[in-house]
């Protein structure tokens, strides 16, 4: 058995999971302080360790301590088994999606080829969609098991919303799959390394601008972020499906939401913004110039920079736009995004056929 290979795989899985989980508190911090400055406030800046507030970054630590020590309460008449199961069902798909995202080009170290993704599955993007559609079960189950009418309404809304937008999500990607001719994310990123007309990077957003906008809207809806956060809708449903959850169970819902955000941003970067590709720099040339590992680190940096921008976009949009009304949400999903996505697939097919 190839123990080195297993070790490398485990290390990659650990590093990716570790990185993503630690993105969550930073995102919470960015969300709170960013929103504060957008709204002429200061945000959390008092919690400190020995006088160091680190711009408020100590606050998430204090939050974690609070979550751990809060009473873990199960409401009366709640379905206990499902109630406990729901947060797990939401977190696990959110944490598994990162497995197929490529973070850098394959490198060859000591004669061994190492792919910079946890699992190079040949079904690629389909795996992501399959897992993303699982997360709706967690939300519906949480709403159902809580024995609370607001939670139930939140769960029902989320199921309707996620089913509607999953269609748009899948259809808007079809154009990308047609152009790059693969469902494997690694192949798609490699395809985006080429150039159009000699100078324009052949990124997804250049070849499929309409698909990018539709995909962006659908990802916002899938991750239940404003302006599509109807499952939570603070001023209508308390906080929707996780109203009855406290302590670490609530924290898990929170983490799952932010991890879904990270997944969405990673997908946008990978499919439409060239993934780890550095514009106008060929991966092979870079590896030849600076060595394999520095090249991989540079590409990881490129990926992270793009990722951070889209994570910020999520936060930025949340504090800009009001929530959609339910019928507006459905109208946008079924009457605007879906036909446009279909038309996009059709036009892309025509263009590919005649060129």
């Amino acid at each position, binding site marked *: 058995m190839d123990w080195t290979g297993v070790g490398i795989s485990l290390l990659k899985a650990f590093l990716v999971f570790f990185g993503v989980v630690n993105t969550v508190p930073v995102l919470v911090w960015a969300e709170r302080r*960013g929103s504060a*400055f*957008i*709204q*002429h*406030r*200061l945000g959390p800046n008092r919690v400190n360790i020995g006088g160091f507030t680190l711009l408020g970054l100590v606050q998430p630590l204090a939050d974690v301590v609070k979550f751990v020590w809060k009473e873990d309460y199960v409401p009366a008449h709640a379905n206990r088994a499902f109630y406990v199961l729901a947060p797990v069902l939401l977190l696990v798909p959110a944490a598994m999606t990162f497995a197929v995202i490529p973070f850098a080009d394959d490198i060859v170290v000591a004669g061994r080829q190492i792919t910079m993704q946890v699992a190079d599955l040949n079904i690629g993007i389909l795996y992501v969609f399959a897992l993303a559609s699982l997360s709706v079960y967690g939300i519906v189950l949480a709403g159902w098991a809580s024995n609370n009418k607001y939670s139930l309404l939140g769960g029902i809304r989320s199921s309707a919303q996620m089913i509607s937008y999953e269609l748009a999500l899948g259809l808007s990607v079809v154009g990308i799959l047609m152009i790059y001719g693969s469902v494997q994310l690694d192949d798609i990123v490699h395809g985006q390394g080429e150039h159009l007309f000699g100078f324009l990077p052949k990124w997804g957003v250049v070849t499929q601008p309409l698909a990018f*906008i539709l995909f962006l809207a659908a990802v916002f809806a899938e991750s239940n972020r404003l302006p599509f956060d109807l499952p939570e809708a603070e001023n209508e449903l308390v906080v929707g499906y996780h109203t009855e959850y406290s302590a670490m169970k609530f924290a898990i819902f929170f983490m799952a939401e932010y991890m879904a955000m990270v997944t969405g941003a990673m997908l946008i970067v990978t499919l439409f913004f060239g993934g780890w590709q550095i514009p106008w720099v060929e991966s092979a040339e870079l590896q030849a110039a600076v060595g394999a590992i520095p090249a991989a680190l540079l590409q990881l940096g490129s990926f992270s920079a793009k990722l951070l921008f889209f994570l910020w976009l999520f936060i*930025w*949009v949340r*504090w*800009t*736009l009001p929530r959609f009304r339910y019928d507006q949400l459905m*109208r*946008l999903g079924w009457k*605007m995004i879906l036909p446009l996505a279909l038309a996009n697939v059709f036009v892309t097919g025509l263009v590919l056929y005649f060129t």
Partner: protein
Amino acid sequence: MPIDPRHVKVLKADDIIREHADTQAWWKRLYLPAVVMGLGVTLGNMIRNLLKPGGLPTIRYPEERRDYGHRFRGRHYLKKRPSGEPRCVACMMCATACPADCIYIVAGEHPDPAIEKYPVRFDIDGLRCIMCGYCVDACPEDAIAMTREYEWASYEREDFIWDKEYLLNWRDEKIVEDGYQPYEGEIDKSRMSRGTL
């Protein structure tokens, strides 16, 4: 005032239909132009605030205080005679005027015949007090006044019953400025009989 007919816009049915159709244009129903404009507004606000955090309206409380007016009605204190005794003569005027009924006075006979009475007990219930300042207005002896002190949080309800000793002496421990006083400046006794003060 008659309306100038030139300023009246008469809406015809066609106009209304056109305006409605305008808001229903397909690119407006995609919401994108409005979304981008909104994002510009919020980003502009954020950048302005990040560059100039001092311009934020937030008062960073323990380090910064709101500048209240000099007639702010904070916690009361009892004024002293030169001898250190309270100026209060236990006339019950403040307790009578108090709308919250938070002042409790027990009067005693003073050995000095010129003073007649003094308060054996003078308690104010800080949790009942509504900080209206009527006791200060009512006092004929200028014996009770208010300060600008407003930080009196405590863990025990008993700490909010301020007795005579406390009201006389708490300003020795904490330096606070005078708040609402019965008169501004020196009292001109000659004007009092003419009822102008």
